């Protein structure tokens, strides 16, 4: 590496200029922190007073201008539960295959696929949900089993959850893989040396060790899924429903979608402003609580690894 040496500044002038780099970059870091503090402050200040027990437990009333957001909370929770049931096993198994079984090119292919999946814009996932899950799978099932009646071939909870599951798959894969990498090879060698098979080693030794990592990935995917609105715009979210969703083919209300519609498409945007801020605060608290739990879990696992 002799390239950097050429560009090393000489003399007093450039040295002072270089010294100010620390200050300049420090200002950037400070600005980021300040922006985050301001953002949180605005939302807490405007939304906080409105978040009451009633707001969290009642349905919207009198044309959405009063009442609470319980159906949206309920819909969001249901959505991410169905999503997690789909994404966590698949994501964990992908990582296990990649790290424990696959060799050579296959690892590269899966990793590239996961990387690219993570980069697909969320609105394209929405299109995919509509084109694949609703039009292709749903309509196909309806034609085959229900004589063309519209049961699964329409926007609903299941398809929105499946769309989000695909979107958050990389989160689970990356987190599980990191956990698997942290399991020392000596564990695997010990198990194999005692005569257990590859699968026994993976199932009884490696996976239990990696469990916190899998859980971290699950929590992070839920937090991500709870905040995504673009993929569910036309795969199942609804503005207002008089009843809570009962089946997987019902539509549902959702916090992020609620914020979007209330702030852009409702007739009395100003009147419902406190509700909008309060809903934003609830969504933010939900995602942050999940993120925080994941960070705690991850740092505990990491320190455990460093000790061993």
């Amino acid at each position, binding site marked *: 590496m002799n390239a950097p040496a050429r560009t090393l500044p000489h003399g007093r002038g450039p040295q002072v200029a270089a010294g100010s780099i620390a200050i300049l970059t420090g200002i950037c870091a400070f600005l980021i922190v300040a922006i985050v503090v301001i953002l949180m402050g605005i939302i807490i200040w405007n939304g906080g007073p409105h978040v009451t027990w009633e707001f969290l437990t009642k349905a919207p009333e009198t044309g959405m201008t009063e009442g609470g957001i319980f159906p949206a909370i309920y819909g969001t929770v249901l959505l991410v539960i169905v999503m997690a049931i789909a994404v966590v096993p*698949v994501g964990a198994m992908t990582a296990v295959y990649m790290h424990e079984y696959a060799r050579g090119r296959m690892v590269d292919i899966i990793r590239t696929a996961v990387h690219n999946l993570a980069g697909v814009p969320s609105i394209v996932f929405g299109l995919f949900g509509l084109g694949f899950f609703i039009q292709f799978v749903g309509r196909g099932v309806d034609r085959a089993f229900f004589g063309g009646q519209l049961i699964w071939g329409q926007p609903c909870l299941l398809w929105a959850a499946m769309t989000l599951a695909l979107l958050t798959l990389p989160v689970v894969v990356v987190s599980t893989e990191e956990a698997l990498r942290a399991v020392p090879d000596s564990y695997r060698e010990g198990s194999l040396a005692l005569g257990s098979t590859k699968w026994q080693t993976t199932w009884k030794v490696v996976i239990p060790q990696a469990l916190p990592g899998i859980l971290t990935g699950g929590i992070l995917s839920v937090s991500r899924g709870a*905040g995504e609105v673009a993929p569910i715009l036309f795969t199942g979210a609804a503005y207002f429903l008089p009843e809570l969703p009962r089946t997987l083919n019902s539509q549902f209300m959702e916090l992020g979608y609620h914020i979007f519609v209330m702030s852009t498409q409702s007739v009395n945007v100003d009147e419902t402003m406190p509700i909008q801020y309060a809903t934003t605060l609830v969504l933010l608290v939900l*995602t942050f609580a999940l993120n925080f739990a994941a960070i705690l879990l991850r740092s505990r696992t990491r320190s455990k690894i460093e000790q061993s």
Partner: protein
Amino acid sequence: MPLVDDATTVERAPARPLTAKRFRPFEALAENIIFAASTVSILGVFLIFVFVAREALPLLTSRQIQEEVTLSTLFTTRMWQPVGVEPKYSVIPLVIGTLKVTIVAILFATPLAIGGAIYTAEFAPRKVRELVKPVIEILAGFPSVVLGFIALMVLATFLQKITGVQSRLNAFVGGIAVGLAITPVIFTVVEDALTAIPKAFREASLALGATKAQTALSVVVPAAAPGIAAAIILGIGRGIGETMIVLMATGNAAIISWNPFDSTRTMAATIGQEMAEVVFGDAHYTVLFFIGVMLFAITFALNLTSHAFVRRITRKLGSLK
């Protein structure tokens, strides 16, 4: 010292002769199941392209739709007016809108994120670093609908007061908010690249009498340059695909104008705005899916490029160890 070098030789040596004698159906089944699960991500990427493209295909094959819109009119006409007696479909205003918002976002986010990352990796005392990194994670955890909401309610009014522009919601407001969304993305990749530079680089530079600032600027940052390039490209990809923020904060007027303070509509926002209202299978529906294909292709290409840069830096550093 382990007795054998790596895991692969372990399982080859003692396990193979045993398993070769006895067929273990359960082992094979387990391996096949997890293999099947791992193909979901490969299939996913593939199916996303196939099924989004499938709904856009009538643009090339259907006579009925080609009477209204063709591939060439999408790029040669200049009006996006999908609803009306005579619908007009041109992606030009949408492409310009997307570019405008992304440029503003990148100009805002890049200096902030790269500067912040350099400070955090090179200069910050331990305590400050432990403050900045969680804050970045918090920013990354902001759902984009929340950033869009703040841009719509607070930022737009604030910027209008300062600049005095006519349309409260415009590409600039949306671009700043998108910039906030991609700041953590760029920050994280740059910081990773900087911390991946071996300590020996810094030690050598400091031993030659360079200051900490000189070392950072002339040794570490140039060595991490591919990582920084990767971060910017990744940020551009995210910016182009961002939907909720632009849907809420840019005003959504599909006009051809390079002025960042005009109301603007992007490709992603158009899909989000109009997909719920279209008739299944008609020209408008087909065109929206075509825009989806464009978005997919652009971000896919950007991601691959970014990934290639990251690989270059790992290979370069790997050969040094």
